[in-house]
């Protein structure tokens, strides 16, 4: 059973105009459940577009995208939002926490979108916070925390609805090496022990090498 499958996926912008841009040119890619892959390539090579495609933030101009064996390439925006909150957890380079909400409220957010009950939500977000080693920092707001702590909160938020797939876009890009290593440990632990599919975009070859498989992108193609 594949976790993610792309069949002949193309993504073109400004079709038919002089500034037509082909971000993805015929991508075929199958990622197994529990696999850890890293996507590398120079900027502009299409790796972010690929990640957005897998993350149901974007739809292909042509081709098919399957998430957990169901075709998501023709879904409308609210159906894609449902896939994003149930099957996928996002971890961003900029952490992207909501500044006005406390740690625990940030973690609760995806559950609130999913309509989880209040008690269940409080229990689960505290548990995730404990797992991330931030059990006593639930009521702090992001700006009071270090970068590493913020990224842990972001990972906890990504796990809120217990998704099968974790998408990480340069998760260590804004952290010092030592903190970056710790964040990688957390992500790898989720992959190995929780059998989460981990898809990570990075430009750091050393970090990429930890993955089961490396996908190299260039000019909108996998090379």
């Amino acid at each position, binding site marked *: 059973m594949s976790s993610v499958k792309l069949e002949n996926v193309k993504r073109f912008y400004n079709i038919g105009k002089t500034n037509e841009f082909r971000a993805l040119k015929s991508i075929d890619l199958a990622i197994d459940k529990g696999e850890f892959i890293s996507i590398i390539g120079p900027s502009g090579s299409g790796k972010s577009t690929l990640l957005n495609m897998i993350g149901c*933030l974007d739809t292909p101009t042509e081709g098919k995208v399957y998430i957990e064996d169901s075709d998501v390439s023709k879904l409308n925006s*609210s159906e894609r939002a*449902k896939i*994003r909150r149930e099957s996928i957890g996002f971890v961003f380079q900029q952490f992207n926490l909501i500044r006005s909400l406390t740690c625990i409220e940030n973690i609760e957010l995806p559950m609130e*979108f*999913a309509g989880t009950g209040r008690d269940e939500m409080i229990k689960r977000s505290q548990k995730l916070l404990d797992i991330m080693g931030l059990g006593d920092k639930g009521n702090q707001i992001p700006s009071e925390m270090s970068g590493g702590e913020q990224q842990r909160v972001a990972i906890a938020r*990504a796990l809120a609805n217990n998704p099968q797939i974790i998408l990480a876009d340069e998760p260590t890009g804004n952290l010092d090496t030592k903190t970056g290593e710790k964040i990688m440990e957390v992500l790898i632990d989720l992959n190995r022990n929780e059998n989460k599919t981990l898809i990570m975009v990075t430009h750091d070859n050393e970090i990429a090498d930890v993955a089961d498989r490396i996908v190299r992108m260039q000019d909108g193609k996998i090379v």
Partner: protein
Amino acid sequence: MLRISIRNLLRHKLRNALTLIGIAVGIGLVISLGSIGAGLTQSMESAFEGSADLVSVSSTSQDGISGEMIEEISYIDGVERVIPVGSYISSMDGGGGFMGISVGVQFTAVNPDDQDYIIGPEIFIDRGRKLEEEDNGKFAALVGYKFAENRDLEVGDEIDYGNDTLFEIIGIIEETGGDADGLVLVPLETMQELEEEENIQTLLVKAEDAEVSETVAEDINMNIDDVIAISYKALVRQISEALGTVNLAVMGIGAVSAIVAGLMITVVMIMSVTERRREIGIMKAIGATEGMILKQVLQESGIIGLIGGILGVAVGWSGAFLMNSLFDFPAAVTLWLVILGMGFALILGMGAGLYPAWNASRLDPIQVLRYE
């Protein structure tokens, strides 16, 4: 979600507070202006309260209403009592003349038995006595409080009807604040003999109860020629309707200022959504639908509207209170006005949020997260 809305609103306290003041003033104006109309309607209704069972009958011909007509009317179903009311203009200066022509004081003539229907059932005598059956044929007058006070008249003084016909004041009615204060009430038989005219111009008809008064008026109009009958109930209703229309127009003025304040909400929400583009993008990326974002923004503008409405009710109530205490004007804030004000504020808030909310919901997370 509600927590996030409240948190967002608290982020810009000054900006939102100013918007709230705008809404509060607008809604307050609607309610204060509305309270004027509501007060007028209420005081009119209470003035007619004891009279709901009365029907006024006026002659439409020079001949007036004859004794036979009165008898016919008294046989109509539902009629309890017929009260003839004569109106005569004296040569006394009534003051408040029009274009140099002074208007004479009106003498109202009734049978002494019927006098309470004219002055009101709960009204007492300040000095002297009321009219009595024996006064019929005599030149006796019961006068209103203001009428006596303005002319320095006392019980025992005489007033001139004209041609040296003098009426002796036998009593002065207590002050009522209403029509009775200017009344000159004389015995009907005296006036009929004096004017050598049996027929009179108007009647009051008392129905058995208020329920049938409008039917009684209809029956009189259908069966008796040369008269027009209207129940006090219908009269109050017609005046209320006219007042309501005027009132609505006046409240419209207040509504315009509230709508301007509503545009302020739109501007504030556009600012707020623009500042939060990234946040909204994040929320969509982690699974919020367009509908959820729409709801979030509408909730925020709705809260501004609702709080503005609550403050507006307070402002409007204060306005009405000031009118009451400073100008002695009967302004009344009714429940209906409060519901109207609050509802208007809420709809205004939500309506003002529609465009910013729609804009926010359409944000593309890829764009927002990449460039900002």
